């Protein structure tokens, strides 16, 4: 197919507009995070800082406790990933290979969790955590996030196991291998892409969580970076520079991961809905 020069130029202009529309909020956030305070309030606003400063980033750690928040966010993201993937993987394999009474009902409940608003879990869980003395702990937040992650892992992995060729397993069974060994040494090595996708999804949900962290944390002991950023609006004053720096800082790891593991992100995105 041949394309004329004008058509090519038109396409390039359209692409530039699309890219601009996609990026401008992020560019604004990063640029504002590098401005000195006077420039933040300047009218008309500038897109490129006249004077670059990293003060807002150092403020994150010196004034806004990011030294505590970031490890908390990381612990929640990593622990919910480990728990969701471990429990979910075993269960998905069980659902796929064995049947027992109540198995269909349990799977159905897991499917339904997707339809529930996470906010519906906040009140009963809070009550439960108060009862267990777990309010203001990372464990409480981690449990809340895992409620959302576990069903997703189970469903995606169950579909994967259902499609997995049974011949390989049968051969191993004849050799006298136990089910768990078959899972560990034959199936899992082949399941790496699927596991990577669900792990990435779980990590993302944990790292981005705001609702459960907001609900269950009360002191910096268990506050995550998302709540820390939101609290830079104190009601009296908004610390714009630090807020933008925090937003950019929080985005950084996940955007880098998305660039490197793009394939899995896109797969996870399409898997959830168009299965």
């Amino acid at each position, binding site marked *: 197919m041949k394309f004329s020069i004008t058509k090519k130029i038109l396409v390039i202009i359209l692409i530039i507009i699309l890219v601009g529309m996609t990026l401008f909020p992020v560019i604004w956030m990063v640029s504002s995070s590098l401005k000195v305070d006077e420039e933040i309030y300047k009218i008309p606003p500038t897109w490129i800082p006249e004077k670059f400063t990293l003060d807002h980033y150092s403020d994150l750690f010196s004034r806004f406790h990011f030294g505590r928040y970031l490890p908390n966010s990381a612990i929640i993201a990593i622990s919910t990933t480990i728990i969701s993937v471990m429990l979910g993987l075993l269960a998905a394999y069980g659902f796929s290979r064995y049947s027992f009474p109540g198995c269909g009902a349990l799977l159905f409940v897991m499917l339904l969790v997707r339809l529930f608003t996470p906010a*519906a879990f906040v009140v009963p869980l809070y009550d439960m955590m108060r009862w267990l003395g777990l309010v203001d702990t990372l464990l409480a937040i981690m449990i809340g996030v895992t409620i959302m992650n576990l069903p997703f892992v189970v469903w995606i992995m169950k579909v994967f196991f259902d499609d997995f060729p049974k011949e390989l397993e049968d051969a191993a069974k004849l050799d006298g291998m136990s089910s768990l060994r078959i899972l560990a040494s034959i199936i899992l090595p082949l399941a790496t892409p699927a596991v990577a996708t669900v792990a990435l999804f779980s990590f993302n949900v944990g790292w981005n969580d705001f609702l459960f962290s907001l609900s269950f944390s009360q002191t910096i002991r268990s506050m995550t970076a998302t709540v820390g950023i939101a609290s830079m609006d104190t009601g009296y004053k908004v610390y*714009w520079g630090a807020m933008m720096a925090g937003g950019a800082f929080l985005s950084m790891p996940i*955007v880098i991961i998305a660039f490197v593991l793009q394939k899995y992100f896109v797969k996870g995105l399409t898997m959830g809905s168009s299965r």
Partner: protein
Amino acid sequence: MSRIRNRERRIGIFLILPCLLFVLAFVMYPLFRNIFLSFHAYNPLHSLETIFVGLDNYRWLTTEPLFLNSLYVTVLFTVVSVIFEMFIGFFVALFLVRMKDILSKWVSRFLTSIFIIPWVVPGISAAVAWRMLYHPTFGPINAMLGKNIMWLSNSSLSLFSIVIADVWKCTPFFIFIFFAGMMSVPIEQFEAARTDGASMWHEFRYIMLPSILPLMLVASAFRAIDAFTKIFDLVYVLTGGGPGRATEVLPLLIYKTGLKYFRFGTASTLAVVAILISLVFGMGLLKRQR
């Protein structure tokens, strides 16, 4: 034989047990606790006693405009934002598929990396960025338009401002799904149509649209459920539900009633009703998926 089957069953249960216990404790129990509390008055700030009130909480929902307003706001937000996202996503994907021959592989990869950014940026980061973009005096949007619009504090505009931010964040979902769907529309059909002298419009109307339509419906239904149930961060940061109650979406109302005013009975009732609403809409969809 039956001994082997028993053993097999034991392995199965053993594999599922950890997950089962988690679901029982942290999914099933909270659900039943919600139902239980919805028939009770329970305000843990005053006393830890639950007082049976029958259907009072449910009656309160129908008489108090709080809930109906919130339901209206949430439904409006969901419908408007999903329609925008679907249309923009559809045309961007169509554009990318059409221009596939012009764009080198490198450019396509670059565009994928760009378009995935809004989708993976944490909700809170997107929310604070948009909050500053919308700022009436030193925000760049008003500066570019040369106007002085109160994006977030004008009650007839604030929900639409949240929709715009959500459209920015979630349109990539549709771009990627539609792009994948359109790529799998068999090319030969296009070629055949083209030699028959079919116009671009006909090609689109009779080949592309029919083959992509089922995907469009499923994807937007899933997105609508997510929008309805998970809209929280954006509203919390941008408007906090205000001005007045103009953007008080259902998840935010449940959160506020529960953990700000500690009216657990009312909050649980709201949660039960919210769950019932999404069940009614979601069940049909899930049944079809299976």
